[in-house]
């Protein structure tokens, strides 16, 4: 670790967090994301230490203070948040308390000023924004996880949204993953090491895809083609105005979930949009065999004419052919309540040769989770996603899994879990009720034909 970082962290144990933004900036200018690496290292090692609860609580407080400090690091805030989100997917590695802290803190990077954007444009497209576009709004209208989005108009009059990545963000996080890799090496003799390592590598792969806007544009285009002519609208992108760090896409009119809900929409409207969101995710899942690694309300726009804008395609993971086939067979077994086959699924995702090797308590917990996940699919007719008991049961189950889960599960299980949680939470916020079963089974059948 950099000596400066070490000194800083030592000081932080006795000193108050610097109060002025200047001091924070000064202290943290060079330490960058290494502080994050330090704490992730701590979080990993902590799992193998035995301390009393009081000590744990103290550690947690320090951790929170340090993470608040991280939140002062300008553009790196977004990067830290992203690493945090990805690792939040891996509670086996970083521990539930860190996941909770990451999720409770709001790290929003400050907006890039226009002079900075002009430099990014010159490097990426060889021209200034006002040369590229007929009109370009200097102030961003939305934040993206690793950049910001501006409104602009093409010379032919098309209204577009331009997503611009923060400078050097990809490299910073890539180096964080390298640090993580090195830290993991120190644990190589510990239980489940190889599985933890696989999770870190997998998260890295997903992240690297997300910082490449060309990859996002290509996936967006594939989705646009399957939804053309439906009530789900995917924006087209402009290849000449898109690079790895700048993504220019058609701007759709509409509002985000929060504004939509603020208008107190009718139950019919809620159900309608809940259905469209579910349709977009399920269709994309079955047609492209991909899963959303970072599903959030910002992925969707609620359009005035009743159509749904499906706008964010950065963070996804692709199933391999073999893993997909296995997923489908297992889902079928789950829907038929075939306990033996479901246990075989659990054995396989936890890399055991037979169901006899499974920890019975873990298997029971997982079976309960499976039942919860498939309930909207096996339920006849409309399913009430606003049912408080259903939501409370899900929250308690996932909490239990986080506390008692182990690292020995395949990466897709984690992504699928996160995507399902994201979907159920969106549906709950919408307070919607509709026939989810028909949507899911229809797409499942289509995919088989």
């Amino acid at each position, binding site marked *: 670790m950099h000596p400066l970082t070490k000194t800083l962290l030592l000081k932080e144990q006795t000193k*108050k967090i*610097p*109060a*002025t*933004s*200047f*001091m924070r*900036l*000064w202290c943290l*200018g060079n330490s960058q994301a290494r502080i994050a690496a330090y704490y992730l290292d701590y979080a990993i090692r902590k799992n193998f230490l035995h301390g009393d609860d009081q000590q744990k609580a103290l550690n947690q407080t320090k951790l929170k203070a340090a993470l608040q400090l991280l939140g002062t690091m*300008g*553009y790196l805030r977004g990067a830290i948040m992203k690493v945090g989100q990805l690792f939040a997917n891996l509670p086996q590695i970083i521990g539930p308390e860190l996941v909770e802290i990451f999720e409770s803190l709001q790290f929003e990077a400050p907006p890039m*000023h*226009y*002079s*900075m954007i*002009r*430099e*990014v444009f*010159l*490097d990426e497209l060889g021209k*200034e924004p006002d040369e590229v576009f007929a009109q370009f709004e200097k102030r961003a209208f939305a934040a993206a996880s690793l950049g910001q989005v501006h409104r602009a108009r093409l010379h032919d009059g098309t209204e577009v949204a331009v997503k611009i990545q*923060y*400078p*050097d963000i990809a*490299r910073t996080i890539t180096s964080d993953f390298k640090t993580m890799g090195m830290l993991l090496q120190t644990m190589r003799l510990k239980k489940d090491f190889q599985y933890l390592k696989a999770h870190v590598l997998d998260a890295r792969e997903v992240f690297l895809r997300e910082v490449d806007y060309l990859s996002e544009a290509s996936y967006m285009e594939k989705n646009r083609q399957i939804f053309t002519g439906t009530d789900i609208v995917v924006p087209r992108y402009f290849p000449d105005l898109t690079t790895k760090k700048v993504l220019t896409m058609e701007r759709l009119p509409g509002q985000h979930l929060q504004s939509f809900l603020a208008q107190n929409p009718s139950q019919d409207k809620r159900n309608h949009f809940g259905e469209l969101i579910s349709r977009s995710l399920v269709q994309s899942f079955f047609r492209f065999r991909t899963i959303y690694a970072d599903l959030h309300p910002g992925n969707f726009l609620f359009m005035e004419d009743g159509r749904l804008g499906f706008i964010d395609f950065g963070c996804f993971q692709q199933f391999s052919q073999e893993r997909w086939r296995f997923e489908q067979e297992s889902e079928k077994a789950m829907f038929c309540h075939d306990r033996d086959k479901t246990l075989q699924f659990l054995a396989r995702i936890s890399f055991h040769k037979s169901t006899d090797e499974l920890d019975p308590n873990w298997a029971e917990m997982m079976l309960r989770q499976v039942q919860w996940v498939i309930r909207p699919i096996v339920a006849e007719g409309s399913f009430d996603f606003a049912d408080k008991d259903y939501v409370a049961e899900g929250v308690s189950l996932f909490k239990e899994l986080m506390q008692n889960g182990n690292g020995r599960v395949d990466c897709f299980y984690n992504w699928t879990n996160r995507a399902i949680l994201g979907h159920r939470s969106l549906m709950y916020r919408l307070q919607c009720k509709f026939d989810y079963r028909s949507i899911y089974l229809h797409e499942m059948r289509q995919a088989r034909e």
Partner: protein
Amino acid sequence: MERAAALFNELGYEKTTTRDISKACGMAKGTLFNYFSSKETLAMTLVAEAMETGRDIYLQRRTGEESFVEDMFLFVASELRALRPFRCYIGPVLESGMSVFAKHSICPAGEKARQAHLNTVGSILTSHNYEMIKDSIALTLYWSLYLGILAHWSKDTSPHQQESLTLLDYTMKVFALTISGDMTPPQD
């Protein structure tokens, strides 16, 4: 000068001699010295010209709507862009031409470039209602920060030196906070 620049890029700054340069220009070594007293002065003159080009580009790009931080950022970023062809050897050139230890550079081309750069900073300060005081602590701080940016940029391996852009942004914010007097230490 163009030929000298080509030789610096081709052979490396350290390995290029005044003999190589005069030979490439088809002139006697003594004649070259009539124009430039040393290789360092010649290289610094090249760098100073690029800095001037950068200043001109900045003035063209400036819209007058920029905040102080944005304005300073735009100025230095435009200059860095103009300096790109010299990036691989700007370190040793600036060490001799704009030494941080000398109050005033011993190299006339370096001193002239320093003054021209600071004059532009002065104009920016004035246009944002700050008072420009020659040899003030604020300007000394600025010059140290600026040389730090150049040193970092000359070794920056990130694509398009993006890391330096981030550093430049932080630096200008720090400078803005300093001159606006917002440096009060945290109170207990």
